[in-house]
């Protein structure tokens, strides 16, 4: 077990390092000169030179890259308009567009993204598993067909189209939900909850569809296993067969995929937050694209890669712990 954890950790560090290198190289090689952008309109060649010197942009690629990586672990100091700005570890850089540290910008917005992510995750896990189990129980019947159609539609509708449609129907046309307002949970829990219903639903729908299909397929497969037949033949109560024998093995893979999907949610949050104007990390990313604020995009890329990789590892380890059969396979 310790050997597996060790090799996984090492692999994770290698992938993280490569992601950092890859992302940094792309921005270094492909993007426009950041010094020119920072300098703005009234710019002289001397000033550009000065900015380059301050930022270390005159240094070769590897020096700059190690500076960035070093900043992640030990922090670094930026010189902005003559003054020194301290950036504590893990330093994700400095945004010249907003004159803020990138790390602070992300930390400020993380609670909103977390709220959307957690709410949506609960919704899609419950919805997907319940719909999937119901479909499996009623295989081939009306309910199964109904969910199959719903699943197909939910998988196919782009979430920004769904967001606009739901917002138009429930907020503008029917008036069942109020226009979203920026309120804190502690100030007005009711309004806060109503604000987040649509974002949760929109983010959850696509995942819920995939989970419904997976759950249905897994449950139907498990019901044909010998141990389920044996349990039934022994005269076990149907409810007990379901709970103890059929659902547990069928749902284990769902849990592992759930971990990975939650870790990858930052990508989905970009669109949901943009459509609903929620000021989370996803919206920050979208705004940074328009403003061409590269340190922010770079930091979000790294952060989401970090989440995904950590998520993968946790899932792998959990799976190894839950299912002993994997252990022998994993060492090969």
């Amino acid at each position: 077990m310790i050997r597996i954890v060790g090799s996984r950790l090492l692999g994770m560090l290698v992938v993280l390092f490569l992601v950092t290198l890859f992302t940094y190289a792309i921005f270094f090689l492909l993007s426009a000169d950041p010094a020119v952008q920072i300098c703005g309109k009234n710019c002289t060649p001397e000033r550009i030179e000065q900015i380059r010197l301050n930022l270390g942009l005159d240094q070769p690629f590897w020096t700059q890259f190690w500076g960035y990586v070093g900043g992640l672990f030990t922090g670094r100091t930026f010189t902005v308009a003559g003054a020194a700005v301290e950036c504590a570890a893990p330093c994700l850089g400095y945004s010249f567009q907003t004159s803020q540290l990138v790390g602070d910008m992300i930390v400020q917005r993380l609670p909103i993204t977390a709220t959307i992510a957690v709410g949506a995750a609960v919704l899609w896990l419950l919805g997907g598993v319940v719909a999937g189990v119901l479909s499996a129980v009623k295989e081939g019947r009306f309910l199964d067909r109904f969910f199959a159609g719903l699943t197909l539609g939910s998988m196919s509708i782009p979430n920004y189209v769904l967001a606009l449609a739901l917002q138009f129907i429930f907020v503008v046309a029917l008036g069942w939900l109020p226009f979203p307002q920026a309120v804190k949970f502690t100030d007005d829990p009711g309004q806060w909850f109503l604000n987040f219903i649509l974002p949760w639903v929109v983010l959850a729908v696509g995942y819920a569809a995939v989970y419904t299909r997976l759950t249905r397929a897994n449950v139907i497969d498990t019901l044909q296993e010998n141990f389920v037949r044996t349990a039934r033949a022994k005269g076990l109560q149907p409810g007990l067969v379901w709970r103890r024998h059929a659902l547990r093995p069928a749902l284990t893979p769902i849990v592992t995929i759930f971990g990975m999907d939650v870790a990858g949610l930052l990508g989905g949050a970009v669109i949901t937050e943009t459509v609903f104007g929620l000021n989370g990390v996803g919206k920050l990313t979208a705004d940074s694209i328009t403003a061409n604020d590269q340190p922010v995009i770079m930091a979000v890329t790294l952060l989401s890669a970090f989440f995904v990789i950590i998520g993968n590892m946790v899932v792998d380890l959990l799976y190894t712990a839950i299912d002993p059969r994997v252990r022998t396979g994993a060492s090969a």
Partner: protein
Amino acid sequence: MTFSSTSLEAEATPAGDSSLHETLESSPPASGRRLLRAFLTDWGAMLSSAYILLIILMAIFAPLLTMLSGWGPYEFDQAAIDPNLGAIPIGPFGGISAEHWFGVEPGSGRDIFARIAYGARVSMTVALSATLLTTVIGVVMGLLAGYFGGLVDLVISRVMEFLMAFPALIFMIAILSALPADNRVFLLVVVISLFGWPYLARIVRSQTLSLKEREFVEAAKASGASSRRIIFREILPNLQSTIIVMATLAVPGYIGTEAGLSFLGVGVVPPTPSWGQMIAAATPWYAVDPMYFVIPGAFLFLLVLSFTTLGDRIRTIATSGEARS
């Protein structure tokens, strides 16, 4: 990344590909005629194909269609919008009339029908090119990794794992926002393909692994066939139905990805129209002029739905006994 690759990822999960794998592997290749007959009697598949064909024709004949409708995608019709009401279209349902079949854009008065027709070109070009590219790369890489094993397999598998561990959407955004804005269609195809091929390659690899142990491969080896001949003449034909299913199921993901990236402003650059970009432009107007997002939204939704249905049906037909002799 709900809109782009969740469906693909779901297909690639252990449960997803093993079931496909087992059923595809345990039976002989489907006979083409039976497959076609099963397909023709399936109204879901037929309806989807009809819609896809319609969009393809619309994309090809976009210039002719706009000549018929009388308005090009870049022409501003100031007479169709009301400057006193914040430039919203004149007439009900976003200004739908004999003059403008799908209405006009609020603010600019550009004809929505023309922009839908030209937007179909972008969607189709990007999605189909990316599918072609990922299929070629995925099949070749999967075959190489599965057939040769050893170091080749190790390297290809590591690269695949690396790419699949990436948060693809965020990374596509990062790359596209860093790149210069010229020739976006080409860049979109390259970036989407870069992150798309491992999902197919993984399945091709696992099927190749089992196919290469079969008697007919051994027979070919014994009769002195070269590796190249065995891979492309003996193994590849057996992967046909898998490749068709995976490719069809990949198309809707790529359509969604292109639209999503254009929606976020890193895809096709205005004034070139794309459906995702039209929906993004419609977002500030959704309360006053809902038709502006409903029309491109419906076209996009139906296209993704059609390809998904088609892929599902082809898979069912290819893996069920129906099409087998």
